[in-house]
């Protein structure tokens, strides 16, 4: 509860702060301060100190899983603000509003990680999405940004409609006429038509939100068109929050009749893995490549939805941390590049050794090389999927796709270390504090890779 209230309040504070504070460099400090407060408040709630006692009639439940995810998401956001604060200022004039919208998104994230009814799920997902539509189009002078925003809005509105329809079907179909996900009592027999239709609609709309194939078509264009700072946020925290909502919904309400919808999820997972990885291979722009790679990583996270066991929950949390940290770091470096193509990275190791080395850690983590958090996360996903004991081929496909991903991630490493840069006047803006933050991020990745217990143990605290 702490997180939901405080993020909302801080969003409003930031927004009105924009009226009084004219200097563009101030809001980011406010945002960082707010983020620290919210992070601390969330951790306090984890240890039982709730500041706001609001009767929600069980519609929200703050369990260890949700609070732990909030902590991960907020910590990543804090890092994101610190790394990218100056880049957010450069997007446009309304700096404090961007920060306000980001706080509203976090409010949605906090709801999506703690909902207990379909209504709250819907609210959470929508609160997450609507500010994003605005942020995508925030670079008003850029035609691509506007186009991306419109595309994202239309597709997003459509999927929201489908989700609402699905919720309505489920509400009408279950004998208790209940929104509570624990109380749907769908039974173990063959699904009634209404429930089945609702279920499929929910899978479709959630797949859309986490950009799983074949509902991924918006992703590359939107990620490419949006200002890179916001792509970074969209591709990491918002996406993993979608997955947390996904597994929360499916584990508690539809877990018992998994057999009946598992095939559908298997197909979606396989398609996401294949399309994401194969298309990423052909990209020349790193930004677009990262968009496809985020689809590919979503495919790996879909394995958790496929498995739906305790290992999957633990793994998803780890994956959220590993993937967010690595992607935020990589995007932060990408933003400062002059040239977004892979050739733009040529010879970076010579010009900016710290950036090149940390970027290598991020890329190795995304590939899933041991010693990085990415490996542990992928390892948990494979473990969870193999524990189910069926659809063994899906795991083999996932492993092969991880190998394909090495191809495009290592292209950047090769460019940075083994190719010579062309002569150019461009000097990268990389102050010492930025470099230290990158080093901290990569250290976190390695620590998590060595000791995943630092995250997982809290789940059973």
């Amino acid at each position, binding site marked *: 509860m702490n997180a939901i209230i405080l993020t909302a309040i801080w969003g409003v504070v930031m927004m009105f702060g924009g009226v009084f504070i004219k200097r563009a460099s101030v809001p980011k400090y406010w945002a960082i301060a707010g983020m620290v407060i919210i992070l601390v408040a969330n951790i306090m709630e984890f240890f039982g100190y709730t500041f706001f006692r609001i009767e929600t009639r069980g519609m929200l439940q703050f369990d260890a899983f949700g609070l732990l995810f909030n902590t991960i998401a907020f910590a990543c956001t804090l890092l994101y603000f610190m790394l990218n604060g100056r880049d957010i200022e450069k997007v446009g004039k309304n700096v404090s509003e961007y920060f306000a919208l980001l706080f509203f998104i976090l409010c949605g994230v906090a709801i999506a990680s703690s909902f207990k009814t379909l209504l709250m799920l819907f609210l959470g997902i929508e609160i997450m999405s609507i500010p994003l539509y605005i942020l995508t189009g925030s670079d008003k002078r850029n035609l691509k940004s506007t186009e991306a925003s419109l595309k994202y809005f239309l597709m997003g509105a459509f999927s929201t409609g489908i989700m609402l329809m699905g919720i309505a079907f489920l509400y009408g179909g279950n004998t208790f006429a209940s929104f509570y996900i624990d109380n749907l009592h769908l039974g173990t027999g063959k699904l009634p038509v209404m429930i089945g239709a609702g279920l499929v609609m929910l899978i479709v709309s959630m797949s859309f939100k986490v950009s799983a194939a074949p509902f991924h078509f918006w992703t590359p264009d939107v990620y490419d068109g949006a200002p890179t700072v916001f792509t970074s946020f969209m591709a990491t925290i918002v996406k993993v929050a979608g997955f947390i909502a996904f597994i929360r919904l499916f584990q508690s309400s539809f877990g018992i009749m998994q057999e009946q919808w598992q095939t559908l999820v298997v197909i979606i997972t396989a398609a996401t893995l294949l399309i994401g990885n194969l298309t990423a291979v052909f990209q020349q722009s790193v930004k677009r490549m990262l968009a496809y790679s985020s689809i590919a990583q979503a495919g790996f996270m879909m394995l958790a939805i496929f498995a739906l066991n305790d290992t999957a929950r633990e793994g998803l949390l780890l994956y959220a941390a590993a993937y967010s940290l690595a992607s935020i770091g990589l995007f932060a470096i990408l933003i400062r590049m002059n040239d977004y193509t892979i050739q733009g990275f040529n010879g970076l190791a010579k010009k900016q050794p710290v950036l090149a080395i940390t970027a290598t850690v991020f890329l190795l983590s995304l590939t899933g090389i041991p010693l990085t958090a990415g490996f542990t996360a992928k390892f948990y996903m494979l473990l969870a999927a193999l524990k189910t004991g069926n659809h063994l081929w899906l795991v083999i496909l996932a492993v092969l796709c991880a190998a394909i991903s090495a191809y495009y991630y290592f292209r950047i490493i*090769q460019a940075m270390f083994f190719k010579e840069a062309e002569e150019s006047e461009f000097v990268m803006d990389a102050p010492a504090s930025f470099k230290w933050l990158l080093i901290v991020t990569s250290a976190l990745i390695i620590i998590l890779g060595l000791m995943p217990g630092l995250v997982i143990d809290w789940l059973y605290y």
Partner: protein
Amino acid sequence: MLGNYITFPELLLWLPLFSGLIIFFIKEPKNAKRWTLISSLITLAISLASLYYHDNNKYLLYNNVSYVWMPYLGSSFALGLDGMGHLLTFLTALSFPVIFAATYKTEYKNANIFYGLMLLTQCGLMGVFVSADALVFYFFWELALIPVYFLCSRWGGEKRVAATWKFFIYTFVSSLLMLEGIIYVYLQTTPTLTAQHSFSFIAFYNSHISPPDQNWLFWLFFIAFAVKMPVFPFHTWQPDTYEQSSPPATMVLSGIMVKMGVFAILRWVLPVFPDAVVHFRNIVIGLSIAGMIYASCIAMVQDDLKRLVAYSSIAHIGLMCATIFATNTTGLQGVMIQMFNHGINIIGLWIVVYLVERQTGVRKLSQLGGLALKAPVLTIFFVLMVLANISLPLTNSFVGEFTMFTGLYQYNRWYAAFAGISIILVAVYSLNMVQKIFYGSSPSETIVVKDINLNEKFILAVVVIFIFVLGVYPAPLFHLTSDTVTTILSHF
């Protein structure tokens, strides 16, 4: 102190790691080089000390250690040294100072990074040989690859990036499949105190997987190891990578890294999948022998010295792989000592090849000739290395290959007969190589060649001493590994 606070496997692991990390920050190339050599010599001293305490019946305390790592998964950071581990850690510890000293003259761009990566590679290799937990094993198996990837891509021939990339993709894909195999076997293990399953060696050995499962798991593991060794038809990365890498990297790859594959088959495949080994042994032996003859035939027509040695290495490894799958005591004993001997010999051979290339500037057989007059000492050492490569009596590899052939013969005489063909072919191309480089008329490239200097003579003398001492008195190696052979064969 030893045993209570720190054990040999830990020392062997952490010393290269930390010295490697420190050397990254030594900017002066000369100092970096010197400290790397010193670090590797200390590692060698530790390894020698560990050999003194090798008897696990008496000194178990010094050779095994286990830390809590991921209790909820049943994985602990467990390290241990058995006979085979002692053998290969000693090979690793011995090879690195030899390699550094032999190539001491060569200057590298960014020498500190080069030497740092070399030591990190040593750490990864040590980790593979001392791990006693499947997850730890996989960690180091992949980690050893990363420094090697950077080493081979950054320093070497013109096409190095593409060649190394091929190597990386081969090994990465196969190890990921092995990871899946590891997880599957893990899920079949019995519960422990803290977790439902366990990654420890013992648990894997006692997993008793059903024969149908063994049959496909076998291939997931075997392919990963076959790529590393490499066994035909997974060998295509090897000649390119060896040719394009810088000499020290090539020596590490062929001297030690290929032993990872042989080691891992002995460590994992034989004890965990005994039924599948029996089921598929003829296919694997057939592939290995076909690979031996094929590689030998290609080696005969090679003009490039490095490629020739690379193909010759495939032939030797093929014999090891074939003999492993004969699964009898004699054969496995032979494989054990041949792992060590081949490591020594191939590094020696690479050193002389490197010296020929350095002194003349070329490594094409067609451009070389008449070196014997100009560099008599180099010629003597080269011929000695080649004789060891042919495994002539008195050299160490004679003992190894003789034992291996006996083992293979005991299993099936026809296999031994076909494998024997490659022995003849080795002699053909090796002697042909000596003839073309050192005798005949000298073309323009080799007119101003000088002989090698004292430092290199000394290193080569050390290698030659190993070759002949172990050729006459191989008993220590047999003694060291007999326990491991018995343990492995007890699963059949």
